[in-house]
């Protein structure tokens, strides 16, 4: 192991502070610990494999004894939790307990490793590392979905289920595009590149995107914090800025293509072809508009009358420039290009010389100076006389003459041949590269472009799964040269440095990252079996998921403050065993799960509490609290509703109607994550998370007590149990995975006797829907079908084709993007009455062309309409006669421009006879909750109980 860095460089997270201070080699950088499993003298009855030899040897040193094996029932539940995150079904449990085969445990283990639910569970652990999300984070007005992130999630599930060797698993995620070039096999692995591409987008700041990717590679795979070296050499660890910018250059050598590759290669059905054609049409509309506007703007910028003020601004001081900007429509980017262009011209140039001399002179006395120059200059060539004769009146006059001459040159006047390309050639200030087209478009153009882009993205959002695409990277033809940015500032690049792998992880000569962008070399360098780090890190994390704690208890921090391993020789023996068994994760699971150490009871013992309260020596198992995904999955499972379909686009996590799919298939929102998963400590999708926090908060309790999701599962669980001969006992079995004790059953029966059915309140008189508005009539009312917790909408995710961002909340909403469609707040009258309508319609955005609102009577005819654009107006109407059961609709339609249409409008109806108010905001309500029977109340209580939340 090479350790040439000065000691102040020792940044490594494996090292403990003491090692750094004393100058010892940090633990993580040492080579393999070669210690073989210790031979145990005497009783070895509790040894099942080498893990136990290591663990027992340490226990013996401390004169501690291991715990006895847990009961078969506990073991089965633990095994299921470890491998699939689900609970064993009643049948599985009974079959297991009845099985007389002495190897029934091993058989169950194999069954679970072969269960696709295994990949779903372990993929979630990996997605924490990969800071997975289905959205970009804050994206201003851009489409914020990562539409195909799920193809990466599904690839991880599949790779784990197939037990892809871990080194290959890593290589695919770094360089699948290079491992499987076009025309070769294995292209389905392209989705693996999501590991790099599903991160936050930082408003498209490339430096931050690359920094995020460096972090996910180094901290995610190696537990090493290279990202610290972005602005300076790492203060404590042996990572230098050269290491950082080597990786930076490698990653900067690739880009995400506009046209992502399809994952399946089968021929398309007609429907798929139609979908693609429409997608193409929408994507082309964006390109067409942009190139059209680009051409128009460039042609305007080439007119002499437009060039002239640009020249003036290019040669003016800042204050004059700002005044000029007020008078003329200047493009700042083009002004700056003209400035560079002028600066590059010779002072003796017959066209530019006079301009350079005169443009900077003050207005006072300007003409005199021009006159002087005109009379003293050699009037050669002939055409140049037009510049100064007759003497120009002011700078603008001169600028126009320069511009006219450039125009004559462009038209091909032979005498001006040397200026021919100044308006059209590659070095012309008007040669704006395609990728900088944005600089040419004003905000009006950009808004329109965004709107077209939105339409293309809405369509993309409903791509059939069979047309899904991989979020790949592709290498640039000319990968950039590696340079250190001084203090992390891209405007201060240093000299060229060699592209090579992180130095402290290399034994011997530097490992160059040369070929192409160097990404494939990086993939190989990361997975070289001669360095223990990659294997140590993953083995430690797998161990952590089986025991609740890793052998290194700080799995994300192997640096100065990280802890040293509790069993270093065991960790290395396991890691080498893992590598020698083909980097097989399933082999690793098998080894750990068949050990006696894993199979111990988790019961606490007084002497252990006294001497090893943190259970570092592993004299027992740890009780585990289930995480968010397991909680939600098990709620569905106990309700008998868990939907076992695999893969595909994500579904909302808690919106109504509730998705019954496993939680790994729910949408991960990066920006405004829903409260419940966050409350239960899901990993932040902003940072690679090897280990989650575990907190206890009231928000968790509120979710379990009151959320419609939990209530719905409790009701379903109760229904399931009711069909049993002994419903109370059945409830315990289904919720807790075991039969009730006599006492528990009696408690349950007493509870039922004392409970009464609870009904939810009366349904709201207001409902939300969509309808068609044509010729002053509203027809085809359809209730909105999805409720997010605060909004009703027509589809699970927004935006969607036609309906766009359409939704209604208590106070307002957004109309459809289709102008013939209206979003409707419908009041159904509880009695015969005459009402008046009041309220305020507001269009708060300062952009867009506003919305229009109407009140529609029971006959479907519009009674009155208003429109609001960037303002608020009162909406007063009535009196309107309603008979009992008749409806009054308050509808909102978009303007011609379907963007920026968020509105506020929550009308209030007032019964003219009684003065009673029907307030659409106050009475806004989600879907009704069905009655909660005593059985359902008991079911919910069991779902609140410890046995549901802890695994022993």
């Amino acid at each position: 192991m090479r350790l040439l860095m000065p000691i102040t460089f020792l940044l490594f997270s494996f090292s403990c502070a003491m090692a750094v201070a004393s100058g010892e080699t940090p633990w993580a950088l040492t080579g393999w610990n070669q210690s073989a499993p210790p031979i145990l003298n005497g009783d070895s009855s509790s040894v099942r494999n080498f893990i136990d030899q290591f663990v027992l040897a340490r226990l013996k040193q401390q004169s501690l004894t291991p715990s006895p094996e847990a009961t078969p029932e506990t073991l089965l539940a633990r095994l299921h939790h470890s491998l699939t995150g689900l609970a064993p079904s009643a049948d599985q449990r009974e079959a297991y307990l009845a099985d007389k085969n002495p190897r029934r445990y091993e058989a169950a283990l194999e069954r679970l490793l072969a269960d696709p639910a295994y990949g779903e569970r372990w993929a979630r652990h990996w997605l924490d590392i990969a800071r997975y999300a289905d959205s970009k984070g804050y994206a201003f007005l851009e489409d914020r979905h990562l539409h195909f992130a799920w193809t990466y999630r599904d690839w991880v599930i599949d790779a784990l289920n197939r037990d892809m060797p871990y080194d290959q698993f890593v290589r695919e995620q770094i360089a699948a595009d290079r491992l499987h070039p076009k025309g070769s096999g294995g292209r389905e692995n392209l989705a693996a590149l999501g590991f790099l591409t599903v991160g936050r987008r930082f408003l498209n700041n490339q430096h931050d995107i690359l920094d995020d990717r460096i972090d996910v590679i180094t901290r995610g795979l190696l537990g090493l914090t290279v990202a610290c070296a972005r602005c300076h050499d790492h203060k404590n660890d042996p990572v230098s800025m050269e290491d950082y910018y080597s990786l930076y250059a490698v990653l900067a050598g690739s880009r995400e293509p506009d046209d992502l590759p399809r994952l399946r290669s089968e021929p398309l059905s007609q429907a798929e072809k139609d979908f693609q054609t429409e997608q193409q049409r929408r994507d082309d509309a964006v390109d067409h508009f942009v190139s059209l506007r680009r051409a128009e703007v460039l042609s305007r910028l080439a007119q002499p009358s437009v060039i002239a003020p640009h020249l003036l601004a290019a040669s003016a001081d800042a204050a004059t420039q700002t005044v000029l900007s007020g008078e003329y429509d200047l493009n700042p980017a083009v002004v700056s290009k003209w400035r560079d262009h002028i600066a590059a011209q010779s002072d003796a140039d017959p066209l530019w010389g006079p301009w350079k001399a005169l443009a900077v002179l003050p207005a006072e006395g300007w003409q005199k100076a021009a006159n002087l120059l005109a009379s003293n200059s050699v009037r050669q060539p002939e055409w140049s006389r037009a510049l100064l004769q007759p003497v120009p009146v002011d700078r603008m006059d001169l600028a126009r003459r320069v511009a006219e001459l450039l125009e004559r040159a462009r038209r091909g006047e032979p005498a001006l041949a040397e200026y021919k390309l100044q308006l059209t050639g590659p070095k012309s200030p008007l040669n704006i590269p395609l990728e900088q087209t944005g600089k040419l478009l004003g905000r009006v153009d950009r808004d329109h472009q965004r709107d077209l882009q939105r339409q293309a993205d809405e369509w993309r959002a409903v791509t059939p799964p069979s047309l899904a695409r991989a979020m790949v990277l592709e290498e640039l033809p000319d990968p950039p040269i590696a340079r250190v940015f001084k203090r992390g500032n891209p405007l201060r690049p240093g000299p060229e440095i060699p592209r090579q792998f992180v130095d402290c992880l290399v034994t011997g000569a530097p490992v160059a990252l040369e070929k192409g962008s160097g990404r494939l070399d990086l993939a190989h360098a990361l997975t070289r079996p001669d360095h223990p780090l990659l294997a140590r890190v993953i083995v430690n994390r797998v161990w952590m998921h089986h025991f609740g704690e890793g052998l290194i208890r700080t799995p994300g921090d192997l640096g100065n403050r990280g802890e040293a391993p509790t069993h270093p020789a065991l960790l290395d023996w396991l890691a080498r065993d893992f590598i020698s068994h083909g980097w097989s994760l399933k082999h690793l699971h098998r080894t750990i799960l068949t050990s006696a150490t894993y199979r111990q009871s988790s019961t606490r013992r007084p002497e252990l509490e006294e001497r090893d309260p943190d259970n570092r020596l592993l004299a027992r198992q740890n009780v585990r609290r289930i995480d968010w995904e397991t909680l939600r999955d098990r709620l569905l499972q106990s309700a008998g509703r868990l939907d076992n379909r695999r893969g595909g686009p994500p579904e909302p996590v808690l919106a109504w109607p509730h998705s019954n799919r496993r939680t790994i298939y729910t949408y991960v929102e990066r920006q405004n994550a829903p409260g419940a998963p966050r409350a239960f400590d899901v990993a932040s999708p902003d940072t690679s998370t090897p280990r989650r926090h575990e907190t206890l908060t009231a928000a968790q309790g509120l979710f379990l007590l009151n959320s419609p999701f939990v209530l719905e599962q409790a009701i379903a669980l109760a229904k399931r149990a009711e069909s049993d001969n002994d419903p109370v006992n059945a409830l315990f079995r289904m919720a807790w995975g075991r039969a009730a004790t006599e006492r528990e059953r009696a408690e349950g029966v007493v509870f039922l006797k004392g409970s009464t059915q609870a009904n939810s309140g009366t349904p709201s008189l207001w409902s939300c829907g969509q309808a068609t508005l044509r010729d002053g009539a509203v027809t085809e009312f359809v209730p909105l079908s999805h409720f997010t917790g605060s909004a009703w909408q027509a589809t699970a995710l927004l935006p969607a084709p036609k309906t766009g961002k359409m939704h209604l909340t208590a106070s307002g909403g957004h109309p459809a993007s289709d102008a013939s469609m209206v979003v409707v707040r419908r009041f159904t009258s509880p009695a015969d009455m005459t009402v008046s309508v009041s309220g305020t319609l507001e269009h708060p955005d300062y952009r867009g062309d506003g919305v229009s609102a109407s009140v529609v009577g029971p006959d479907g005819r519009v009674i009155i309409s208003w429109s609001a654009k960037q303002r608020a107006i009162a909406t007063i109407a009535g009196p309107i006669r309603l008979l009992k059961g008749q409806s009054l609709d308050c509808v909102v339609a978009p303007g011609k421009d379907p963007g920026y249409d968020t509105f506020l409008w929550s009308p209030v109806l007032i019964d003219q006879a009684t003065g009673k108010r029907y307030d659409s905001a106050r009475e806004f309500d989600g879907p009704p909750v069905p009655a909660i029977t005593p059985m359902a109340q008991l079911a919910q209580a069991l779902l609140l109980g410890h046995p549901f939340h802890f695994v022993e």
Partner: protein
Amino acid sequence: MKHFPDRRCLLRQSGLGLGALALGMMEANTVRAADPLAAKVSGHRPRARRLIHLFMNGGPSHIDSFDPKPELAKYAGKPLPGPVPVTERVTGAAMPSPFRFRKWGQSGTEISDMFPLLARHCADELCVVRSMRTDSPNHEPALMLMNCGEQRLVRPSLGSWLVHGLGNESRDLPGFVVLCPDGLPVQEGQNWQSAFLPAACQGLPLDTGRPNTDSLVEYLHNPALAPAAQRRQLDLVRRLNPVADPLADPRLEARIASMELAFRMQVEGADAFDLDRETTATRKLYGEGTQGRQMLLARRLIERGVRVVQVWTGAGQPWDSHDDLEANHRRLAHDCDQAIAALLIDLRRRGLLEDTLVLWGGEFGRTPTVELPTPGSNLGKLNGRDHNPYGFSVWLAGGGVRAGTVVGATDPFGFHAAENPVHIHDLHATMLHLMGFDHEKLTFHHAGRDFRLTDIAGKVVKEMMAG
């Protein structure tokens, strides 16, 4: 190695146990959880225990509110002498303030007629910092810097740091609550993100535009079950899961306690949001509008132990007056002037101002020069101001703040902080100091290094602090 028994003892005394739970971040199984507070407290006496941050999002104009610039009148309609710094868009000639300033209170603090009630009643409470500066002329990075101390990368917000450092003294409510009517500000939830700190430190956003204030907290009410029925459920859970075994995992008891806490929050949390429980006089003091409602709610929340309340003007960036600055600023200020003055008066009356820090301000200020037309971006009326990160004003009041003072100054035109410049990091360092922390010591170890709110910068500004 006694921390399990210790924690158990803590939990046994149910009141304290709940208090500990209310920290919201009992790291139930980590070995380093022992006491996340102990090492963080710097040792000096905290002057404030709570923070209310009134966030005027969009960037209110300092030149028209708290930083009079009579010099501008001389250049009205003409370019300012000297170079004009780069801002987001192009600006032109000098634009004198259409607002009228005068000196207020005994301190003589100058405030314009944009905030007449605040000026009349609270001028002597304020410490106006006129020399603020930030690093970016764009909303998103400037918001991130003001809230999280970093422009682009994901870092915990000031509120999250405070909840992490102080714990949450509320037994029934989250530690950090964000109030914003009718939608979210630009950059949305990132403004109150906890990043790598535990999720319980994150701000809980509430839409104060909603008419039913008691529906603000998610899942606060059961749609069908009455509290009595839920009480029976929890009692059953307790009976079915007796914690008789002294060796039982302490997390079991802690979990029961967290559900008891949730149960109580249904009643007491709802109380915090029920403005109808205030007297008519108090409600009149704050005014009837959205701003009055949310300021009053802010007071009710901190009164009940919420550590940090951030109150936003509204969705998007309301103060961003690229056009019609006078009309827009007058309207926005009129909406909140009474409510803000009422908040300060009410806090003072209740003895809460002494240990509550109040911060008012936006993410940057505005230019002394008029914004020139840009196609599509403004209406080209030549009566608005562009963003100005080089100099702007904020004010503080309450706990430990030197009341009735003005700190620093901008240049004669209000473009640059000229005298005693205060960077956002310095503001943060000072606020943390007032709340009892050394900004260099309030750290969290993550990804191989110790992170802090002020990164590697920040100095405590003595002039802002009472002696």
